[in-house]
C-alpha cells in the first residue's frame, strides 16, 4: 500500500470547513443516539437517581398493550393514507402531463400550496371543516338529508378523518415527484410501443410502470416513514383520542415523555420504533439500489 500524502493547506481547510457541522452533528445527533441507547437500560428519574436494569424497560414496552395499539394505529394510518396518496398522485400526474399551458403551471403551484403549511395549521383547518354543528362538511351533508357525523369524536371515523387531512396536505408533493418520474420516461418508448400495437394497459404495464419504479419506491418509503410517524395532525385534531384510536407511535412516546417520570421506558419505546423504521426503510432502500445498479 502506498501512503497518500496529504497537503497541509487542504487538511487545515478541511478541519475549518468541517468543524462547525461536526460539532453540531455530534452534539445533537450522535451523542443523543448513544444517550438514547444507554438510558433505555436505566430505571429511575432525575430526582430519585438511576439504576441499571438491563433490558427490562424493553420488556415492559413490548408487553404494554398500548404500545402495540399505537403501532397498529400507525399501520392503520399507513393503510388509509399511503395507497390512496400514491394512486391519486399517479392519476393526477398523468392528467397534469396532458394539460395545456397556462393551466399546467397553475395547477402545479396550486396543488403544492397545502404542502407548505404546518401540520398544526392543516389540523386546525380540517378540525373546523369537521366541526359537528357548524362545520362545512356536516352542513353540506344536511343538504342531502344525511345525519350529522361526529367525525373526530367517533372512534369509527376519527382515524379516517385525520387521514383525509393528511392526504390533502401531502398529495401535491407526491404528485409533483411522480410527475418528474413520468417526464423522465423517454417519449420514444411510448411511440415504439404504439408501433408494436400495444394498448393503453400494455403501455402502462411495460413502459410507464418500469419507468417510474425508482421514483415510486422513493415515494413509497418516504410516505411510509412519514405517515407512520404522523404526530401533529392527530395532536391538534383529536389529541390522540377518542379512546386512543388516532394515537400513533410518536403520540405514544410524547404522552409518556409528558406524563411519565421514568424516562427509561420512553427511551426504550423510542429506540424500538426507530429500529423498526430503520429496518423497514433500509430494506426498501436496498431494493431500490439493487434495481438501479441493474440499469
Amino acid at each position, binding site marked *: 500500500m502506498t501512503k497518500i500524502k496529504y497537503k497541509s*493547506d487542504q487538511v487545515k481547510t478541511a478541519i475549518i*470547513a468541517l468543524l462547525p*457541522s461536526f460539532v453540531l452533528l455530534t452534539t*445533537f445527533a450522535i451523542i443523543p443516539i448513544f444517550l438514547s441507547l444507554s438510558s433505555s437500560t436505566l430505571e429511575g428519574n432525575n430526582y430519585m437517581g438511576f439504576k441499571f436494569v438491563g433490558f427490562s424497560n424493553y420488556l415492559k414496552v413490548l408487553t404494554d398493550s398500548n404500545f402495540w395499539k399505537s403501532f397498529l394505529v400507525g399501520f392503520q394510518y399507513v393503510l388509509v393514507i399511503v395507497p390512496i396518496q400514491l394512486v391519486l398522485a399517479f392519476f393526477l400526474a398523468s392528467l397534469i402531463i396532458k394539460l395545456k399551458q397556462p393551466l399546467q403551471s397553475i395547477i402545479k403551484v396550486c396543488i403544492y400550496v397545502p404542502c407548505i*403549511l404546518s401540520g*398544526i395549521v392543516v389540523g386546525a*383547518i380540517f378540525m373546523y371543516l369537521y366541526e359537528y354543528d357548524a362545520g362545512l362538511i356536516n352542513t353540506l351533508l344536511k343538504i342531502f338529508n344525511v345525519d350529522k357525523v361526529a367525525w373526530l369524536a367517533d372512534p369509527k371515523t376519527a382515524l379516517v378523518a385525520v387521514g383525509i387531512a393528511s392526504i*390533502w396536505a401531502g398529495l401535491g408533493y407526491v404528485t409533483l415527484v411522480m410527475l418528474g418520474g413520468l417526464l423522465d420516461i423517454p417519449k420514444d418508448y411510448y411511440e415504439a410501443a404504439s408501433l408494436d400495437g400495444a394498448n393503453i394497459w400494455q403501455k402502462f404495464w411495460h413502459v410507464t410502470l418500469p419507468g417510474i419504479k425508482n421514483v415510486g419506491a422513493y415515494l413509497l418509503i418516504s410516505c411510509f416513514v412519514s405517515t407512520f*410517524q404522523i404526530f401533529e395532525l392527530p395532536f391538534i385534531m383529536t389529541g390522540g383520542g377518542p379512546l386512543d384510536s388516532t394515537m400513533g407511535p410518536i403520540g405514544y412516546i410524547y404522552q409518556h415523555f409528558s406524563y411519565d417520570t421514568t424516562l427509561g421506558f420512553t427511551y426504550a419505546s423510542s429506540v424500538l420504533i426507530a429500529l423498526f423504521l430503520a429496518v423497514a426503510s433500509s430494506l426498501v432502500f436496498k431494493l431500490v439500489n439493487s434495481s438501479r445498479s441493474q440499469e
Partner: protein
Amino acid sequence: MNKKVKNIIFSFIAILVIIISLFPLFWMFISGFKAKTEIIATPFKFFPDTWDLSNYLGLLTGKTNSIFFPRGANFLTSMGLTLLISLVAVVLSILINSLAAYAFARLDFPFKKTAWLYYLITMFIPSISILISATQVTKFLGLTNTLPALILPGVVYVWSIFFYRQFFLNIPRSLEEAALIDGCNRLQIFFKIYVPMSGTPFVIMGISVFQGFWNAFIWPTIVMKNPQFMQVNQLIAYFRSSQGIEWHMLMASSALASIPLIVLLIIFQKKIMEGIRISGMK
C-alpha cells in the same frame, strides 16, 4: 371532436383539483373574519354578516380576546421572532452545510471516508429516537428556554450536505486551479468561486430549511416554555385547549402563520418546483 371533448374534461378535472387544493385555505381566511359567536353559529352562513377585523387586529396588536393564550406571549412578536430564527437558521444552515460539502467534494484529508460515513449514518436515524435525548443534551448545555436551543439542533442537515456536494463535484476544477495560481487559499476559493455559483442549490435548500423552522412545533414545544419566545405554531395550538376551542382565533392565527409561506411559494415557485424534482432523485 373527440380530442376536444377530452381536453374539456381534463381541464374540468384540473379546475376541480385546484378548488379542492385551495378552498380549505380560502375558508380559513374567511373564517378568521367571523366573530367568536358567529363562527360556530347555526344556521350556517358562508360569509360573515359583518366582516370582523378584531381577530386579526387583536393578534397583530397583542390584544387577543382569548382566555387560553399564554400570559406574556404576543402573537406579532412571535411571528417576528419565528421569522428571525428561521432566517438565522437558513443562513447558518447554508454556510455550515456547504462548507462541509466543499470539504467532502474538493479536499483531501485523513479519514475522509470514515467522516463521510459518520455524517451519512445520521440520515438513516429517525429523528424520533433522538428527540428526547436531544432534549436532555440541550438541558445539560443550559440551553433550555433559550433561542439557540430552537436553532442549533436543526442546522446540520446531512441531506443538504449530500446535495451541495453533488453540485460542487460538477463545478470544473480548472476554475480553482487558476485561482490557486493567483494566490488564493482554499477557503478563499470556496467563498469566491463556489459560493457565487451555488445560487440555485442554496435557494432550493434555504426554502426547505425556512419552511421547516417556520412550521416547527414538536421541538419548540419541548424546549421552549417561556411564552415570550414561543414559536408561531406553538401559540396557535393554545387556541385549541383541552377546555375548549377558540375557533375564531384558531382560524385567524393559522391564516396569519400561512401568509409568509404562501408569499415564499409565489416568489420562488420555479426554484421550489426544481427542488421537488431533485428530491425525487434521492
